């Protein structure tokens, strides 16, 4: 019987304790989930279990006990590890089929018809049969993750360790990844350890471990865990004490409130835990802009915008309007053309066809844009911060780029730092900051020149629940108090609900453009936005 047991494992990384005294167990065919904020110790524990990192304590699997990577060596034929990061273990210029044959060979598998058939099945499960000759670097993020997964599965591991395989992956690819996992554990009896930032995924797991600041603080089935916090979860009412947090859907309070109780989600665990640990979660504030310049009702208008890369059409005649005081969610699978579209709007890619009007001014050349740059704010997928400069120095640099008077800039910086809650990090380097803080500070950098329109490309990937909730609080306040237009892309369908309007791209074409409530009305059976998204994506070429 292939059982996994982890006893008192501690991982120390350069003198800081990454995870302390973690113990857990799993048996055949189980999917075990790791949830917790960025830096809570999930990856370190996974690395220890996979035998790729030194640790203290003891791990036993399949009857073998090990206490170091060296001792784990004899177990490696039956372990599969997929580390965090999209396409991390792939070689960008090897093709899909070359990957499968490389992984078969380094796993020392006998080339025979059984292996061939298995490889075929994996390719089919991942929907990659048509792309066997494509180089990994040219696959979309979702495809890369599926390829990584089947490469990890090639030697039929009995223990599969997956570190955030679905972060940054669109809902459709995510569902396909899950289908592969379900099939594998059914047929092979594999134990699957998996960390995730999506709570809907955690709900589907057999057992969930909650990590916080280097230790496991709770475990159980999703229902058991939710039960433990049930009494602290209320319908949204304003908070009065420090032992209470209010988000737009829920209020979490350690003291009993008069408000009505509400059914908790797994996200509640994070909030209740933060309250118990007396973590101060400063409420986000946004004061009005200094500039009094009025904002036109339509800030951007695109007509038939098209972008081609060789014979590939990344954006196919897209019409879109961006209005002031509106949050527009731009959704679509990996590779549907979201980032390309934003880059075209920003002038980072030349427009191949179509008309673009920014602030009522038709854009024909780069010259037309120059004066408009001061009205646009942009945060890219990877926050473009200078990692050798402190937060303060970074912000000053961005202010200088926009020709903002130093006095005015430092006044604004202090205000943003205070309002967005990163005051205490002003003299730290970006890499010392939690992801959530980094993200808010990146947005502050994009807001220094008080833009009228803000473009955000997947700003929330990998950010934990609390930071995400604060992030959305900030966006809503920006919309309300500044009245600016915000365009955001995301893979969290739960976040789509926070947008005012949704534009859905599929294979470079726009297939949906509607208000969120209208979409819910159109699809009354859909439980959440993910269902709506999948509904549009499954229908083949009807549009």
């Amino acid at each position, binding site marked *: 019987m292939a059982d996994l047991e982890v006893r008192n494992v501690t991982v120390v990384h350069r003198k800081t304790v990454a995870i302390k005294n973690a113990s857990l167990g799993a048996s055949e065919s189980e999917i075990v989930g790791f949830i917790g904020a960025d830096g809570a110790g999930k990856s370190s524990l996974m*690395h220890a279990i*996979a*035998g*790729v*990192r*030194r640790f203290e304590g003891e791990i036993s699997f399949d009857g073998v006990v090990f206490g170091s*990577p*060296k001792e784990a*060596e004899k177990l*490696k*034929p039956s*372990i*599969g*590890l997929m*580390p965090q*990061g999209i396409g*991390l*273990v*792939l*070689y*960008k*210029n*090897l093709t899909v089929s*070359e990957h499968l*044959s*490389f*992984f078969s*060979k*380094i*796993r*020392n598998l006998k080339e025979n018809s059984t292996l061939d058939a298995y490889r075929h099945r994996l390719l089919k499960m991942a929907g990659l049969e048509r792309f066997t000759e494509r*180089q990994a670097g040219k696959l979309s993020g979702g495809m890369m993750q599926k390829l990584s997964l089947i490469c990890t599965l090639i030697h039929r591991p009995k223990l599969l360790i997956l570190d955030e395989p679905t972060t940054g992956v669109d809902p459709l690819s995510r569902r396909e990844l899950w289908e592969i996992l379900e099939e594998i554990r059914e047929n092979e009896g594999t134990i699957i350890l998996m960390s995730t930032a999506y709570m809907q995924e955690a709900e589907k797991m057999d057992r969930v471990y909650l990590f916080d600041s280097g230790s496991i603080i709770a475990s159980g089935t999703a229902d058991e865990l939710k039960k433990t916090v049930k009494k602290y979860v209320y319908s949204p009412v304003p908070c009065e004490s420090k032992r209470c947090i209010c988000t737009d859907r829920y209020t979490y309070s350690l003291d009993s409130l008069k408000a009505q109780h509400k059914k908790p989600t797994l996200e509640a665990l994070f909030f209740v835990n933060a309250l118990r640990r007396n973590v101060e979660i400063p409420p986000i504030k946004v004061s009005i802009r200094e500039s009094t310049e009025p904002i036109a009702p339509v800030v951007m208008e695109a007509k038939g915008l098209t972008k081609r890369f060789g014979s590939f059409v990344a954006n196919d005649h897209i019409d879109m309007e961006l209005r002031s005081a509106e949050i527009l969610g731009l959704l679509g699978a990996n590779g549907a053309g979201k980032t390309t579209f934003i880059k075209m709007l920003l002038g980072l890619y030349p427009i191949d066809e179509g008309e673009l009007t920014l602030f009522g001014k038709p854009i024909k050349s780069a010259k037309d844009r120059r004066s408009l740059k001061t009205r646009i704010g942009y945060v890219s997928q990877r926050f473009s911060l200078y990692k050798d400069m402190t937060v303060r120095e970074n912000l000053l640099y961005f202010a200088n780029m926009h020709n903002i008077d130093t006095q005015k800039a430092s006044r604004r910086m202090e205000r943003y730092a205070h309002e967005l809650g990163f005051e205490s990090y002003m003299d730290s380097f970006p890499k010392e900051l939690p992801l959530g803080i980094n993200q808010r500070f990146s947005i502050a950098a994009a807001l220094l020149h008080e833009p009228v329109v803000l473009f955000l490309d997947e700003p929330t990937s990998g950010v934990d629940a609390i930071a995400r909730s604060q992030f959305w609080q900030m966006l809503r306040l920006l919309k309300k108090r500044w009245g600016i237009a915000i365009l955001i892309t995301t893979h969290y369908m739960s976040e789509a609900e926070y947008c005012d309007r949704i534009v859905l791209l599929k294979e470079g074409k726009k297939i949906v453009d509607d208000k969120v409530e209208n979409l819910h009305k159109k699809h009354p059976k859909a439980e959440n936005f993910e269902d709506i998204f999948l509904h549009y994506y499954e229908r083949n070429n009807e549009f």
Partner: protein
Amino acid sequence: MNFDVIRAYMSKEFKELLRSRLILIVYILPTMIIILFGYGIRMEVTNARTLIIDNDNSKISRDLAERFHHSKYFDTVTVNAMSESEALNRIKQAKTDILVIIPASFEKRLLHRQKSEIGVFIDGAFPVRASTMENYVKGVIYNMAKSLHIQPKSLITINNRNLFNQAMRDEDAIVPGLIGLILLVAPAILSALLIVKEKEEGTIFNFFSSPIKKSEFIIAKLLPPLILHSVNIFILFLWATWLFEVPFRGSFLLYWIAAQIYILISLGVGLLVSIIASTQIVAIVLTIIITIIPGFLYSGMLMPISSMSGESKIEAHIYPVMYFNHIVYDTFLIGQGLDSPKNQLYLTILLFYALFLIFLGAWLMKKEIS
């Protein structure tokens, strides 16, 4: 040892090298270095712009001017009258490199065995070049004095070393040394890159999490650079003998074996760098610093090791460069081959050096996240 695993890794490396076009660097870089440095480093000076002021205008003075004129080392202009300050001004304006002033009644004094003074002014902006030019000038005057059976010392103070007649060809002195430099730098960079690239991009996890042995991984990573750069041993040989016309007097087999061992040393350096560096750019910079500086200083190109003393002599013996260059210069210019006990000793030292570096690297490398 599982050769299928090694083969799989190696074929992956070759595909990546070809598709990422890194292969171009493997073959263009060494050729580029040998051509740039081979032509670029010039110790000898030719066509020095020389102004001769002949105040005497006699048979002997004209003969002296002729001698300068017929040398490929000088481009002469002879005038019969020009003030010294005007002439010196020409040096200041960098219009002239050398100024030779023949005094009036030069011939008369000479025939009367009276002391005479030829003024020589040389542009000293580049000291090495200046001293070379100085020696050339002295050589010309010395020669003339000899033909007149005059003790040159009574004419002008002349350095006894006669660099002039036996001037060695620069190519012969430099190009073999360059081979040593290139074979130390280029394979090290490639082997460090092949390993650090996986660390930087995260694919190193495939090694960590699979049953591949450390020895298999290292062999798979070092063999491709060894194979690719072995070709450069021949390419560089061709450039040296064909393009730069350096004579080859010794044993080709010795040259080849020594170069192969030397590449192994270079791979060992790359392996050690890959253990410290975690990004490709750091790996490149570190490798270049570690290999080029000693590769150049102790190559014997700038200064013969035999004329080094103290610390520099000790350092020269610590780095492998000296041993390889000794063998290379021997094979090209001298040809003693394996009969020379010094060559035998140096070859053995190189072999142990290579084994030491590679085993040290293999011991230091860990199959886990550091």
